[in-house]
């Protein structure tokens, strides 16, 4: 286990490093000039040159990369051009909002999609299952901005019972959470359904049933327990994706998460902020994936980490 953990941590560090390097190069290859985005419209060429020098943008790319690495290892991610504050702090100001929305959306998805998937598996290939399928796929097919605007129109304008934007009260979480969760429901419920159908037709279930195990125990303990690994993998992947921000939902609901922050950083060519956001979100996403991997032996005792099947 310690060897496995060390190897995975090493891999994770390498992944983060390569991601950062790629982002470092790509943002500098994209058109646009951070100095022009930073300066007022009246700025002269001399002003722009001074700003470029101040930001170190007139150094050769290799030098900039060296400085970036040096600062990275000393924990300095630079100062955001547009926020005039340490880029890491700006990202961390937004991160709680993103984590809250991601956790809430995932919780709602799990609470609804798992029972729904089980229900669909128990009624596989019936008309009722088809109806549930249609509804979840319809939810997934609706663009998130449309779902968001519809929810806003109903619950914030026609029947103003929930806030329209921001996270100023607990109820402000409801509409963005539902919008994000609707998108995940079809994916997760169909995955649960597929795994459960497979499990419920397995020989061990037939044996257990013949030995008098109740249908409730068969479904929720035996079959669902055996479906847990792919389910947790899928939820972990969705969670990691949500940590990168859900830009459209954030914009529609005025949710101050990292997704809209990245968009702004890209528009203003705010290199330190782009790099800090990528560092934080990539680290979190990799951490989540690592935790998911570590959870496998807990979910399935046959799994031995670091050993071939």
């Amino acid at each position, binding site marked *: 286990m310690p060897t496995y953990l060390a190897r995975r941590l090493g891999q994770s560090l390498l992944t983060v490093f390569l991601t950062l390097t790629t982002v470092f190069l790509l943002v500098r290859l994209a058109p646009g000039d951070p100095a022009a985005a930073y300066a007022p*419209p009246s700025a002269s060429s001399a*002003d722009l040159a001074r700003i470029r020098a101040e930001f170190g943008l007139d150094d050769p790319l290799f030098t900039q990369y060296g400085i970036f690495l040096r600062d990275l290892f000393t924990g300095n991610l630079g100062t955001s051009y547009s*926020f*005039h504050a340490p880029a890491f702090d700006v990202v961390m100001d*937004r991160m709680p909002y993103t984590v809250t929305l991601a956790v809430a959306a995932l919780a709602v998805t799990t609470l609804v999609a798992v029972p729904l998937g089980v229900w669909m598996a128990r009624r596989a290939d019936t008309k009722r299952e088809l109806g549930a399928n249609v509804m979840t796929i319809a939810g997934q097919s609706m663009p998130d901005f449309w779902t968001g605007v519809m929810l806003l129109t109903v619950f914030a304008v026609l029947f103003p019972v929930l806030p*329209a934007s921001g996270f100023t009260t607990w109820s402000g979480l409801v509409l963005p959470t539902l919008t994000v969760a609707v998108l995940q429901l079809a994916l997760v419920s169909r995955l649960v359904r597929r795994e459960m159908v497979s499990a419920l037709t397995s020989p061990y279930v037939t044996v257990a049933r013949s030995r008098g195990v109740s249908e409730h125990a068969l479904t929720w303990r035996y079959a669902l327990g055996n479906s847990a690994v792919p389910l947790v993998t899928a939820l972990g992947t969705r969670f990691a994706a949500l940590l990168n921000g859900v830009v459209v939902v954030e914009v529609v609901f005025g949710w101050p998460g990292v997704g809209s922050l990245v968009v702004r950083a890209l528009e203003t060519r705010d290199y330190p902020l782009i790099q800090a956001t990528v560092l934080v979100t990539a680290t979190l996403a990799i951490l989540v994936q690592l935790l998911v991997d570590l959870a496998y032996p807990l979910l399935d005792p046959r799994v031995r980490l670091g050993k071939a099947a």
Partner: protein
Amino acid sequence: MTPSPQSASPEHEPPSRRTLLRWGALGGAGLALGPLSACAGPTGAPGPGTLTLGLNRSLVSLDNKLNQFDAAITVQRAVRQALTRIGPRMKVQHVLADRFEMTEPTAWTVRLREGVRYSDGSPVTVEDVATALRMYAKVNGSFILGLFPELPTVEPTGERTFRLRTERPVPVLDRLMANIHITPAAANRPEELQSGLGSGPYRVVKANGGAGEYTLARNTRYWGPRPHVDTVRVRFVPEEASRVIALRSGELDVVDTLTPDSAEQLTGLPGVTVQETSGVRICQLFFNFRKPKGHPLADPRVRRALTYAIDGESLIRDVLTDSADPAEGVVPLALEGAVRTGSYTYDPAKAKSLLKSLGADDVRIKIIWESGEFAADTSVMEAVVDMLQEIGVRARLQQFQPGGDILKWRQGRGGDWDVIGNGFPGTTGQALTSLQGMYGGTAEKERTRDTYMGFVVPHIEQQLSDAAVEVDATERNKKLVAVQHTIWDTWPCLWAFAPKTLLARRDRVRDLDLLTLNSYDLSAVRLEG
């Protein structure tokens, strides 16, 4: 075999798989529900003593050294104040100063108002003013510095009095100083200040610059009249549709810098009032003045002929939904010192015949602009292309994304173009600074491509320079009138308009006096009920 006491003791057994899963579930639930405990109230509507503002851009700090946009001014000035401000009808009003007058062509005598103090109780001093000017001077990329021909130096003459001295006359220094916010000298830095200590009617009690959210509370030590509202919450809501919905639902009290579409949606709704004033920003379809001699667009007669193709009235009515005024001068008429110099006339037949007589009927036009430069920008541009096609001029469009390479193109380094869609702000409220910014190009500036679209007309630059140092107000105005007519006669724009400043508020918000500069005095605002 007897088990050892240690192995028999259940409290020393490693946690089972099931226990670990339970702990994980509990931890997850805690993580999900934890932040909720910090929140209160179910509806999000502001309380009776709280005013909530929804800004379209993130207010990253309450300092304006690097960050000044329309709506930010309202909030920044509620916390930090300047010696003067631009009030209603563009008149200069004294704020921290109670005397601010030109006593020599290159010197202004200023006296700080007695009893002005910061929210921590410390007095505003002459040293604070001197330090503020020094700090503004040290910042690279400052929006403010570009407005000053030169920054004045402070000569203290008493405990509350000083002279602001410049090398050349700056007859509008009292207006320019409205942009220099005063902070205690010891706390001032040559950078955007993140703390909010100021002398204004409000003080900052909670700030999240990253999310653009601030809570301001009434400054109990405020030296002026007591503000009417206890608490002001500032929120950043980037999407206009969300701001409109939040205003309709009562979650926001004021949303500003509205687009014409949103203003139309909100007009007439119960509980909502839309306010508008003339704007100080001019949006132009500006010709490229870097065309070589002999190019049709280098001839002002061709430029003028092309203007006849544009049906400005239709654009204002149908595309901009009456949210703008057609330009009748070279700067917005709301600016002090601006004059009417003419108007754009729609006469496609005349355009066609003039172009033919000038041998320019085969002219091709490439129009460039950056997305979001002004409201309904794409629709305006598409309509303009159609109008030009009506007179046989083929036009094509190239749109740039924000943050892209438009600057390079503006400077003529990205490629050739003929007309650019561009907005120019009138931050100081006076015509002179806008005129200098757009039409004061020199050959020297053009060498580094620092002129406005290559506009270099030496006699116009000379006229502007003369006006800028003229200390006699009547004489200065005469010079300004003359130069504006001269500029108009060069036909620098295919068409231009001045968008109105639009703001929407809930009806419970009273005494919100929207100024032409798209800001208002927060301390005067009242809440009903």
